C-alpha cells in the first residue's frame, strides 16, 4: 500500500503546515505536546472528568514540595472520561485517572486500566470506602445523590416535606417531583439505584410504577431538572419552575448558600435523607503511565489532609479520610446521611444496562 504511505506523508506535511499556520493564531506560551523545556519525568498528568477542581494554592504547594508540575486534562462527564481511558489502555494520556465512581468501578477494573498501588496514608481512609482489596484504585471522595426540597413551598402550605422513598409515592406529594433520565444522567442513575437498593431487584419496578402514577416528571439532565424545573433554584424561579422536589445532591443546600447573592442565613433547600444513594469516587495509577513515580506522588496527594480538606468547597463532595475536617459551610448547612442505599459495584456492572432499559420502558415511554 504505497499510496497510503504517500497519503500519510502528505498528511503529515499538511498537519505540520497547519500547526505552524495556527500557531500564529494561538499563543506562544503553549507548546505542542512533546515540546517544552521541562524534561518529561518532571510533569505528572492527571486525567479527570469536568467536575474536577482544586484550589490553585493547594496544587502549587504540592508542586513545590514534590518538584513535579501537574497538568490536568478534563474530558467530558464521568462515564465518557473513563471510557476514553479504557479505549487508550496501555498508551494513556496521563499518569493518574481520577473520577471512577462505584457505579463504574467494575468496568474500570475488568478492563485492567490501573496498576495496583497502595497509597501512603491509606490507613487514614475510612475502611468502608476501600472497595478494591488489590488497591488498583484509591478512594478519594464520597457524595450522596438525594431528593432536595424547596423549604418555602412546604412551609407555605404547612405540609411536611417528604423524607423517605416511601413518602414520595404518597398522594400529598403528587406532581411535585422531577427526576433526571437514568440513561443519560449520573444523578438520574444514582436515584434509580437508590430505589434498587431499597426495594431489591424485584420490587424497584413496582415502586417506579407508583411514582409514575404519582406524577413524577423526567427531564434529561441535572441542569434542566435543577435550573429549569425546581422551584427553589435561581434559574427555576426565573423559569417559573413548579416542582418543589428534585433529585440532586446532599451538598446542594450548602452550595445554594455559598453562591447566594447575598448569602442567605439559611439554605433555601433541604435534603430528604431517606432517598439517598452514595457515590464514592476513586483515583488510580494508569497502566503504562509515562511518569509512574510522579503518579504515585499524585495519588498520595489526593488523600492527603490538605487536598481532602480543600475538596468540599471545590467539588462539593465529602472527604474519605478520618482526619479531614469539614468546612463550616458544610457542618452548618449540610446534612449527614446516616443510611444511604447501596448496591455493590459488581451487581451494578452486571445489571446496569437491563435496569436502565427496563426503567426507560417503564417511566419514559
Amino acid at each position, binding site marked *: 500500500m504505497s499510496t497510503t504511505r504517500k*497519503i*500519510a506523508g*502528505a*498528511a503529515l506535511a*499538511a*498537519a505540520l*503546515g*497547519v500547526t505552524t*499556520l*495556527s500557531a*500564529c493564531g*494561538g499563543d506562544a506560551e*503553549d507548546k*505542542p*505536546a*512533546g515540546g517544552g523545556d521541562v524534561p518529561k519525568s518532571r510533569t505528572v498528568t492527571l486525567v479527570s472528568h*469536568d467536575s474536577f*477542581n482544586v484550589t*490553585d494554592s493547594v496544587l502549587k504547594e504540592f508542586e513545590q514540595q514534590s518538584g513535579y508540575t501537574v497538568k*490536568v*486534562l*478534563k*474530558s*467530558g462527564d464521568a*462515564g*465518557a472520561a473513563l*471510557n*476514553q481511558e*479504557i*479505549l*487508550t489502555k496501555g*498508551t494513556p*494520556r496521563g499518569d493518574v485517572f481520577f473520577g471512577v465512581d462505584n457505579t463504574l468501578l467494575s468496568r474500570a477494573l475488568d478492563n485492567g486500566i490501573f496498576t495496583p498501588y497502595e497509597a501512603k496514608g491509606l490507613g487514614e481512609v475510612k475502611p468502608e470506602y476501600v472497595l478494591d482489596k488489590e488497591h488498583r484504585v484509591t478512594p478519594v471522595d464520597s457524595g450522596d445523590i438525594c431528593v432536595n426540597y424547596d423549604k418555602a413551598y412546604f412551609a407555605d402550605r404547612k405540609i411536611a416535606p417528604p423524607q423517605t422513598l416511601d413518602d414520595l409515592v404518597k398522594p400529598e406529594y403528587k406532581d411535585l417531583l422531577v427526576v433526571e433520565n437514568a*440513561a*443519560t444522567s449520573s444523578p438520574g442513575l444514582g436515584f434509580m439505584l437508590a430505589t434498587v437498593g431499597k426495594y431489591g431487584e424485584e420490587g424497584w419496578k413496582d415502586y417506579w410504577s407508583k411514582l409514575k402514577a404519582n406524577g413524577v416528571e423526567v427531564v*434529561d439532565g441535572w*441542569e*434542566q431538572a*435543577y*435550573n*429549569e424545573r425546581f422551584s427553589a*433554584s*435561581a*434559574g427555576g424561579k426565573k*423559569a*417559573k419552575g*413548579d416542582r418543589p422536589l428534585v433529585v*440532586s445532591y446532599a451538598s*446542594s443546600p450548602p452550595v*445554594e448558600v455559598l*453562591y*447566594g*447573592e*447575598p448569602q442567605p442565613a439559611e439554605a433555601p433547600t433541604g435534603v430528604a435523607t431517606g432517598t439517598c444513594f452514595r457515590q464514592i469516587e476513586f483515583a488510580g495509577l494508569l497502566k503504562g503511565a509515562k511518569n509512574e513515580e510522579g503518579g504515585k506522588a499524585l495519588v498520595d496527594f489526593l488523600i492527603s489532609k490538605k487536598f481532602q480538606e480543600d475538596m468540599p*468547597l*471545590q467539588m462539593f463532595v465529602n472527604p474519605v479520610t478520618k482526619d479531614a475536617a469539614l468546612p463550616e*459551610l458544610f457542618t452548618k448547612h449540610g446534612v449527614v446521611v446516616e443510611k444511604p442505599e447501596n448496591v455493590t459495584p459488581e451487581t451494578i456492572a452486571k445489571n446496569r*444496562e437491563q435496569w436502565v432499559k427496563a426503567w*426507560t420502558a417503564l417511566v419514559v*415511554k
Partner: protein
Amino acid sequence: MAVPLAFFGLFFAYPVAAIVGRGLKTDTGWQFGRLGEVLARPDIADVLWFTTWQALASTALTLLIALPGAYVFARLEFPGKQLLRAVVTVPFVLPTVVVGTAFLALLGRGGLLDELAGVRLDTTVWAILLAHVFFNYAVVVRTVGGLWSQLDPRQEEAARVLGAGRFAAWRRVILPALAPAVAAASLMVFLFTFSSFGVVLILGGPAYSTLEVEVYRQTAQLLDLSTAAVLTMVQFAAIGAILALHAWTVRRRETALRLVDPGRTAHRPRGWAQRTLLGGVLLTVGLLIVAPLAVLVERSFDTPGGYGLGFYRALQDTGAGGGTFLVPPLEAVGNSLRYALAATAIALLVGGLAAAALTRRGGRFVRGFDAMLMLPLGVSAVTVGFGFLITLDEPPLDLRTSWILVPLAQALVGVPFVVRTMLPVLRAVDGRLREAAAVLGASPLRAWREVDLPLVRRALLIAAGFAFAVSLGEFGATVFIARADRPTLPVAVARLLGRAGELNYGQAMALSTILMLVCAVSLLVLERLRPDKTSGEF
C-alpha cells in the same frame, strides 16, 4: 487537492474508520452479523424513523421561514441591516444548553407563549422543530442571500420587458440561478438537524431520541463500540443517500452567472408588497430569534438586588469560595477567540483549496471528494473525538493532549461550510475572464487575484464567518479535548450551569451574553473587512 485530502484522511477518515473497525472487529474476525442484529431492534428502528422525519420537517420549515428572509437581506435596504444579519447568526454559536433555557422561556410553562395564548410547546416535537429553525435560519439567509445579493437584477428586468409576468420572471431567471445555493443550504440544514443532539435532548425530553443521541450513549456511556459502529455506518449510509439526492437535484451544474456588487442590487423597499414582506420578516426574526436571545440577556442582568452588573463582575475572579475553573471565566473569551481564529484559518485553507480543486475539475472522483467533505457534518462528534484518541497517539502525531486538536476538530465542521459557500460563487465565475487575463499576459496567480478574488471575496468572508461561528459555539468535540486550564466559552457556560447556586446560574447567563456579543461583533468585523484595494468594484 492534496492538502484537503490529507487533512480529511488524517483527521477524519482514519480516526472514524479506526473506531468503527474497533467496534466491528473482534478476535474472531469481522462481525458483520452485528449489522443485522442491531438494525432489527425495534428501539433502533424507532430512533431511525424519528431522526429522519424530524430532520425533513425541520429542513422544510427552515426553508419556508428563512427564504423570505434571504430575499429581504439580499435585496432590500433598511436601517440596521448589517447588525441584524450578525444577530441572526448568533444562535448558531450558542451552546444547546443555553438555547434550551431560552426556548423554554419562550415555549415552556409560564413562557411568553403561555402568557399570551396559554399554549405550551415544550416536550413536544414543535419545540424541537422551532429550535432547529432558530439555529439554522442563518444558514439559509447567508448561503442563499449571499448569492441572491449578487445576481444581476437587470436579467430579471430584461425578462419583464420581454413580457414575462413578475412570477414568471422570478421562476425563469432567479430560481434557476438560486437553485444550487438553495440546495446547498437545505443540505446543510438537513445534515445539521439529522445529527441534532442537544436540542432534542433538552427540548424533546427523554421520550425523543435521535441517532446521534444513541451513538453518544453507546460510545461514551456504555462503551458498546459494536452497536455504535453499526449506528455510525447507518449515519454514513443516510448521509450518502442524501448527498446522492443532492447531487441529482443539482445535476445541472452551476452555470456561469453575471455576478455584480451586492451594494448595487439592494434598494429601499418599494410598494406595499415589499414593505409587507420586510415587516413580516422582521417580525419573524424578532419573535423567533431576538426574543429567546433577549431572555438570556435579561436574566444575565437580573440579580437578586434588582438589575445590575453583579454577575458580570463575578466573572472576573475564580471565586473565593471555590472557583469552577483554574482561571477566571472571563479568560475563556480569549481562549475561544484564539481557537476560533486558528480553526477559521485551517478551515479556509483546506476548504478554499478544496473548492478551487472542485471548480477546476469534473468527473466522478471529484464528485465523490465533494461528498466526502460533507461527511463530518453528519457524523457524531463523539465518534470523531474517540477516533482521535485511538489513532493520534503515537509520536510525531501524539496530539491527544495538544491544544491544536481543538481547532482541528472545529475546522472539520467548518470546512463543509466554506466549500458550500464558495463553490456556487466560484463556479459562477466566467472562465473566459480568466482566459482573457491570461491572454493579456497575467500569470495564473495574478489572474486569480484580479479576476476570481474580487468576485469571491464576499463568499470568502461569509465562509469565514461561518467557520468562525461554528468554532465559537462548538461544544461536542471540545468538551472531550479542552484542557482544564483553557476552557472555551461554551465549555465554561456548561460548567457553570452544572452547579447549584444563584451566582453560578447568573454567571452562566452573563457568559452566554458575552458569547453572543463576541460572536456578533466578530461577524460584524468580518462583514466590514475589505481589502484596501477596491478593485472589485465594477
